[in-house]
């Protein structure tokens, strides 16, 4: 039952190196996720995904980035100048900042110095994620509004409604975990899962969190924010070139953040089941492998479920997820109190 920052101090240069490494890894993995998603989606539809550019189509994202980067950064006449430019930056900044909290391992001694294998280990882990999730959402809404187009505006309004509705359930789903672990620090929560990963006792919480996460990162079946068929592309309809890439980058990075949080809170972080205790240097790879599985699940769901209608989205969020999450938090609280007294 410890609260507070991890009990050691890191020099400023270690923190800079750490953030660079984490950012580098995230940037390196993102294109792979994009090509993986497209290839896997292909398999789900009895076809190969992209397989022409480079070996196995692995250079596809590179080709696309070159294409986007060489495009004109167009801007509608009705756009609101500075906001139109700032909005994608807010989105991407929030996504990168939220990624800092995902723990890839404990704090081992590297060359005699104790280094935490994470960006930061705040004493308010999940709250930090929600805070940056809420900021990310300014990127969406400002982008949609500043574009000066009705489709963008509709997309932004949908994003607003959706994020507000699902953030509640997402937060409530985590309360069960926090009560069980007795801490808000993500590393403490992982350590508390030594006996049993939380997705077994907190299965309902895990389900609710997963659903709400899909909505939070605007992925199918909750992608009616983008809704290609109805709204062209939602809030980033008017964006092109690198600014649109920024939005896409933020979306995929958010997917990684959400996977990381789910892995940390429910799937035991860097722990392995059945008492297997690998050396410390394996820890980040375990976390990455679990995130990879979670992302695979994201893609699988995308290949399966059609987009929800707006009223279905709202009734699912408020009438199913929220009661489930509340009930879960309540039952967990009662059980924890009963066990401890």
């Amino acid at each position, binding site marked *: 039952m410890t609260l507070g920052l991890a009990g050691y101090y890191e020099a400023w240069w270690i923190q800079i190196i750490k953030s660079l490494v984490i950012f580098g890894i995230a940037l390196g993995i993102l294109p792979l996720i994009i090509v993986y998603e497209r290839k896997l989606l292909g398999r*789900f539809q*009895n076809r190969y995904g992209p397989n022409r550019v480079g070996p196995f189509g692995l250079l596809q994202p590179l080709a696309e980035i070159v294409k986007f980067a060489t495009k004109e950064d167009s801007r509608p006449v009705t756009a609101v100048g500075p906001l139109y430019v700032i909005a994608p930056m807010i989105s991407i900044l929030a996504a990168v900042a939220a990624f800092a909290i995902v723990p890839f391992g404990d704090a081992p001694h590297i060359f005699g110095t104790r280094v935490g294998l994470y960006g930061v280990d705040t004493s308010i882990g999940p709250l930090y994620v929600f805070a940056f999730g809420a900021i990310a959402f300014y990127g969406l809404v400002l982008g949609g509004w500043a574009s000066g187009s009705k489709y963008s505006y509709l997309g932004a309004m949908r994003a607003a409604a959706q994020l507000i509705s699902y953030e509640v359930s997402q937060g409530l789903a985590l309360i069960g975990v926090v009560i069980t672990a007795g801490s808000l620090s993500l590393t403490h929560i992982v350590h508390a899962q030594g006996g049993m990963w939380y997705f077994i006792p907190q299965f309902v919480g895990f389900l609710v969190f997963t659903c709400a996460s899909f909505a939070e990162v605007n992925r199918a079946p909750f992608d009616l924010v983008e809704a290609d068929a109805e709204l062209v592309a939602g809030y980033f309809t008017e964006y092109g070139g690198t600014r649109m890439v920024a939005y896409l980058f933020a979306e995929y990075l958010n997917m990684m953040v959400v996977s990381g949080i789910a892995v940390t809170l429910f799937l035991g972080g860097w722990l392995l089941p059945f008492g297997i205790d690998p050396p410390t240097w394996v820890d980040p790879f375990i976390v990455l492998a679990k995130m990879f599985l979670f992302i695979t699940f994201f893609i699988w769901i995308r290949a399966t479920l059609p987009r929800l209608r707006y009223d279905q989205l709202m009734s699912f969020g408020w009438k199913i997820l929220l*009661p489930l999450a509340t009930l879960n938090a309540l039952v967990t609280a009662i059980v924890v109190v009963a066990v401890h007294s």
Partner: protein
Amino acid sequence: MSWTPGEDQIAVQRAPEPGAAGGTYRAFGETLRGLKTTFARVVEGVTTIQYPEQKVPVYPRFRGRHKLHRFEDTGLEKCVGCSLCAAACPSDCIRVVAAENTPEDRVSAGERYAAVYEINISRCIFCGYCEIACPFDAITMGHDFELSDYSRADLIFTKEMLLAEPIEATPLRGEGE
């Protein structure tokens, strides 16, 4: 036509209202079924044909680019320059100019031969009437279908091109395939 109001009403099957239990079951239970369905597609494997490397074999009667033929024993052209193919052609894409065979220069088995035989492939509709019209089976529809080119002039096939074997043989579908 008489029409009474209410006649064209259709009964709409509505899903149950999203109650707690039913809604939860639909949200999660039915999703599992959907996941199973899509995963079965992964297990099924890929049905894509990687086109330029891998081609769908054509049927024996497939009407592709035309071919002109020679007699196998003598090597003489079968075409005698009668222009019946040009007459039969609905899109008027065949041009035949006939010339007399001489004892010194014998090109075809008949009296005359086609000095010029051109098919404008960009106009051809691949109907196969030329093949039917030909009294000597000199022209047949081949199996080649990759006929794109960079200029229209390149799509006018001359007699030499039509007589030559295709550079790459189109795969042919076997019996019962």
